[in-house]
């Protein structure tokens, strides 16, 4: 059965590898110092989509991302791995969105794409760790949802069988399509980029990523697949009041840096005398039994 799959993917600051200059002296995040990467769980989702495509001839995989123009990189990296197309939602009106306004924007774009059988996404993004956008997109589209998926075991007669992680165990569920499935980081890792696809798509860009008087203008005219879809709020018939900061019920009241209370500590060496001493001290004070 040929399916139309959309994978939600996000470009995120690499919060797992935070360097010393990641925080400004004022205690805010220095985004410029954090490299932008492909959200890890979203790569697991891409892999599941590509596997479904291999098993179901005629299936197409498109990647939908929201962000500044440079997030076009997410679409390129997906094309390099075997995705067929992508859409970048970019507009100043989308800025400052919490999860609810983000899911409104993504849901509106999915409606615009039309005829989607399966929406996949990573379980959560590492910059917020909320895991909220997947279920909220599902609700906005009135679709069934399965979260924390580890493997999509198969799709037959419009019903997907999914193995998912739950607290302390696992579950296998059947969900009729169309549906939203979010994929856990413990699912199969994403395949590497394919050299031929990298050659094919390395100049693929969104119009906003291109400099004025781009020397590759002729190339773009000759190869339409190098021009990636770029949509504004108006392009997806979005309601500006539900987008970005305006559409976000949650407000950030304050942000503070974390400072831990330093303690006066006793420093010991690894010598036998020191280790013997600390064990005796802990035993005498009944700290350990």
């Amino acid at each position, binding site marked *: 059965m040929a399916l139309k799959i959309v994978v939600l993917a996000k470009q995120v600051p690499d919060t797992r590898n935070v360097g010393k200059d990641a925080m400004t002296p004022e205690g805010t995040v220095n985004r410029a110092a954090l490299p932008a990467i492909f959200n890890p769980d979203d790569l697991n989702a891409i892999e599941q989509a590509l596997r479904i495509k291999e098993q179901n001839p005629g299936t197409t995989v498109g990647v939908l991302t929201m962000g500044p123009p440079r997030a076009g990189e997410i679409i390129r990296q997906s094309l390099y791995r075997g995705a067929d197309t992508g859409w970048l939602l970019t507009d100043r009106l989308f800025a400052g969105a919490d999860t609810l306004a983000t899911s409104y924007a993504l849901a509106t774009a999915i409606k615009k794409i039309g005829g989607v059988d399966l929406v996949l996404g990573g379980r959560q993004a590492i910059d917020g760790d909320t895991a909220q956008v997947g279920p909220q997109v599902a*609700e906005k589209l009135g679709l069934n*949802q399965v979260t924390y998926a580890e493997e999509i075991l198969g799709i037959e007669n419009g019903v997907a069988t999914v193995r998912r992680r739950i607290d302390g165990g696992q*579950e296998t569920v059947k969900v009729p399509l169309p549906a939203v499935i979010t994929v856990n980081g413990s699912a199969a890792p994403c395949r590497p980029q394919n050299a031929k696809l990298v050659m094919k798509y390395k100049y693929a860009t969104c119009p906003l990523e291109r400099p004025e008087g781009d020397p590759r203008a002729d190339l773009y005219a000759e190869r339409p697949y190098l021009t990636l879809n770029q949509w504004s709020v108006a392009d997806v018939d979005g309601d500006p009041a539900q987008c970005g900061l305006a559409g976000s019920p949650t407000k*950030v*009241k304050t942000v503070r840096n*974390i400072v831990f209370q330093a303690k006066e500590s006793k420093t010991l060496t690894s010598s036998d005398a020191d280790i013997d001493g600390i*064990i005796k001290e802990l035993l005498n004070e009944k700290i350990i039994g």
Partner: protein
Amino acid sequence: MNNVFVYCEIEGTVVAEVSQELLTKGRKLANTLGVELHAVVAGTGIKSKVEEQILPYGVDKLFVFDADGLFPYTSAPHTDILVNLFKEEKPQICLMGATVIGRDLGPRVSSSLTSGLTADCTELEIGPYDDAKTGQHFDNLLYQIRPAFGGNIVATIVNPEHRPQMATVRSGVMQKAVYEGKAKGEVVYPEVSKYVSPEAFVVKVLDHHVEAAKHNLKGASIVVSGGYGMGSREGFDMLFELAKLLHAEVGASRAAVDAGFCDNDRQIGQTGVTVHPKVYIACGISGQIQHIAGMQDSKIIISINSDPDAPINKIADYVIVGTVEEVIPKLIKYYKQNSK
């Protein structure tokens, strides 16, 4: 109207500990606000089995939804229950566990009610808020305090205008305690079909398998924890040996889990378990903020690290400067000698 609600999650007929922890927190918030604490639970064959696991935590009113198909949990029926109940009850706050269930259900409910939801809160407080842009003043909002950006900052989030204010909290972050004050303890059994449409039962659970936890890290009085500095899965064997002697549980940092040295259910930190032991022995852990946030309440912290400047040493009571390969066998040796 305007009360505090806690969604209680179950496995079979057993109420999750995180839900009881949230009932205790919800009771405190309700007292601060001068409102009632309500709880809601949904499952199959739970009537007269779950009430006594919920009411002692200070619940004024408990809604028990008992029908076929409500266990194992699936998204749509439980969403219908909360959304339709909240349309009637109009709570001001709704809390749920930051578990697989809570993180599946919370966003779906919040989207349906267009209310704000904050995931993985580490503190919840009540306070005022002034909107700098509109100049509006709000009293008695729920401060939803949570780490952000991989734990490098802490943000206080408010939902000024939308109700309920929703938040999820991880297991072990709050402490449960039977309520000593007076609560009404009323129990009602609403008719499930009035809240859940038949079409909601569309996702079928073929197989549901949950194992009893292999450890009690959350409740351990001594924790021996290893980081990336342990070097390998074999390195962790030393920690298990030390832990066995001390009647301790073994924990790990995210770096050690990511490297495959230890199973991820033993991860301590913001994205893992929060522990409050009497003694915390950190072995080869540098002490990233995200780890420290999950163990800083330990009474006594012992850090073993070859780097005297490891960040964790600042909050440690005892710092042993040395390699784990050298120090841990000595700890085992001298414990055996001295404890006789």
